[in-house]
């Protein structure tokens, strides 16, 4: 059975973007800090709308931030 996994580089991007805090990013994209924490830790895959909002904050494309991998479970 295939297991889907979306990883991201938000933590690194925040650091490279004037050491932006999770709260600042959350305020910019209109979610709570806990949601940013969950996304960074891979506990939540954001909606397409939120993914676009995050990508616009960093002036990057969605695929530059989020990557999709499909793992095969044995």
């Amino acid at each position, binding site marked *: 059975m295939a297991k889907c996994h979306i990883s991201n580089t938000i933590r690194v991007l925040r650091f490279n973007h004037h050491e932006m805090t999770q709260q600042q990013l959350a305020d910019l994209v*209109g*979610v*709570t*800090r*806990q*949601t940013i*924490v*969950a996304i960074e*830790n*891979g*506990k*939540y895959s*954001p*909606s397409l709308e*939120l993914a676009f909002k995050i990508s616009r904050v960093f002036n990057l494309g969605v695929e530059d931030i989020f990557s999709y991998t499909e793992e095969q479970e044995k």
Partner: protein
Amino acid sequence: MTYQVKKNIMQLVSAIFVFGIYFWYVYQQYLERNVEGVELFRFWATAILILIPVTIVLRLIIEIIFIIINGIITKESAPSFSDEFDKIIDLKAMRVSHFIFILGFFVAMGSLLFDSTPSTMFIILLFSGFLSEAFSIVWKIFLYQRGV
């Protein structure tokens, strides 16, 4: 531990506390009054209808106290809105809640088939309402910790 997890743990404790005390009070009244017939149905209907506002008011008070105490201790302010992560967890928890309540409803109706008293049916209904809420909160805590 995130704010949402702490809030849900508080909600679970307050749900157990409020339901436990209220049910104990109602059951004592039931034993003392020894009601029968139509009065019995009226008694349980009143008990269930009063439970709703009592639960809302008491849990609101407990939540306000929690926000104040949590704010003083952690200096963390409560999120002023629910975002998509909160909403998806709420929906998943609601599904669990509905499933358990419907299961309880069928058990309550089934108890009548097996010659149980109407009081048993009402008690099962009350408990299924409580359990559906308790499990939904536990499921929320689990999803906030594990992710969705």
